[in-house]
């Protein structure tokens, strides 16, 4: 009985002490001590957690790297495929834009009939400025037909076989075209060169030619239809001691990037050589 009493007393005292401490702690009397205690707990937990995480990473990482590598390879393959698609689509867009421009051009010039052709090659000699197109006599292409793009004149058909034709560009050293300067209202002759530069010659000294003047085919001589755009005057050289003025021309067409051209199929060049007087 005495033992039972003393055990109950002990329990009561312990409860009272713990309860008192708890009450004091809840009342904020042990804040510094409890802070130290909880800080130690947090530090210990952090240390343990970090080590456990490191161990976990160590055991699980190889599997993740392998899967990541596989996924990376998959994504790279997909990116390559998409890049190829983008290039393909970009090319189609470019082609479509060129074709749309050519269609617009042919609609705005309904008096002519056109045959579209792709430029498939150039003359092997760097001294000559000729291109080869993939349309020939089977497509109604004939020698002398003018060839244009939506930007302007590029040349005329020089030789034809069944499925291809050779085009002499206006930049060729042997090319010579009668042109009309719209603003100055005068005629001149356009001449190509081995470097691809184009110049105007035989401009009358009376004519006032300014940089920026538009150059069109005049139709004289019957080699080309009239009013096809060729380019603009860049600079003029006029010397009093010379019979004619000369001018440097900026062609409207970028000859380095010829891809698709239009052949004017309803134009037949006129051979005026029998009418040209010959010296006896």
């Amino acid at each position: 009985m005495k033992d039972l009493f003393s055990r109950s007393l002990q329990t009561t005292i312990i409860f009272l002490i713990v309860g008192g401490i708890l009450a004091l702690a809840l009342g904020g009397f042990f804040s510094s001590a409890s802070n130290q205690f909880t800080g130690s707990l947090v530090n210990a937990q952090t240390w343990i957690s970090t080590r456990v995480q490191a161990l976990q990473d160590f055991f699980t990482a190889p599997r993740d790297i392998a899967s990541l590598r596989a996924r990376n390879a998959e994504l790279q393959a997909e990116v390559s495929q998409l890049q190829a698609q983008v290039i393909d689509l970009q090319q189609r867009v470019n082609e479509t834009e060129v074709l749309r421009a050519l269609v617009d051009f042919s609609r705005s010039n309904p008096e002519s009939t056109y045959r579209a052709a792709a430029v498939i090659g150039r003359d092997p000699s760097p001294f000559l400025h000729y291109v080869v197109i993939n349309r020939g006599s089977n497509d109604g292409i004939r020698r002398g037909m003018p060839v244009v793009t939506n930007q302007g004149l590029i040349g005329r058909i020089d030789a034809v076989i069944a499925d291809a034709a050779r085009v002499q560009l206006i930049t060729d050293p042997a090319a010579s075209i009668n042109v009309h300067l719209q603003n100055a209202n005068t005629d001149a002759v356009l001449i190509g060169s081995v470097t691809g530069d184009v110049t105007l010659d035989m401009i009358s000294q009376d004519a006032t030619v300014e940089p920026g003047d538009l150059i069109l085919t005049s139709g004289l001589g019957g080699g080309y239809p009239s009013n096809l755009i060729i380019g603009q005057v860049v600079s003029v050289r006029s010397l009093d001691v010379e019979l004619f003025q000369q001018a440097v021309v900026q062609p409207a067409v970028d000859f380095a990037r010829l891809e698709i051209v239009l052949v004017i199929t309803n134009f037949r060049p006129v051979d005026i050589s029998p009418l040209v007087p010959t010296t006896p």
Partner: protein
Amino acid sequence: MRNLIAFPLIALAVIFQSAVISRITLLSGYADLLLILLAGWALQPQVRSAWHWAFVVALFVGYLTKLPWPVTALGYFAVVFVAQMLQRRIWQAPLLAMFTVTFVGTMVMHLLSYAALFVAGSPVPLGDALGFVTLPSLLLNLLFAIPMYTFMRDLARWVYPGEEVE
């Protein structure tokens, strides 16, 4: 019989020249793949068909170019002539021979082209021709000369098996 490879190979080279090489310009000049192909072939000591190859090259190129056929034929025959002459004299240094043939061949071919244009009534200023066409073309030809020589040496070994000359 293996010499018949000349036809598809030269046809392919002509297409490549017209469609690709002619678009890779340096100033106004570009390489002449056919010329260096012929030079590389004619310099191989075991080759006995260089003149035939020159004829085929002239045939294909003459079909494509505006230059008169005799001009191109003469130019390519001159390349073979120079190559065979040099091949007998400086056979110990094939790359030097290749460079020399490329140099001389390019100059001869351009001289003939220049003369042809002059005769046809569209003369080209000599300074422009030399500075904008011939020298850039020569540089590009020399750049292509070594890989072409190597390719033609391997081809010659295939066409003439067991006839390698040391």
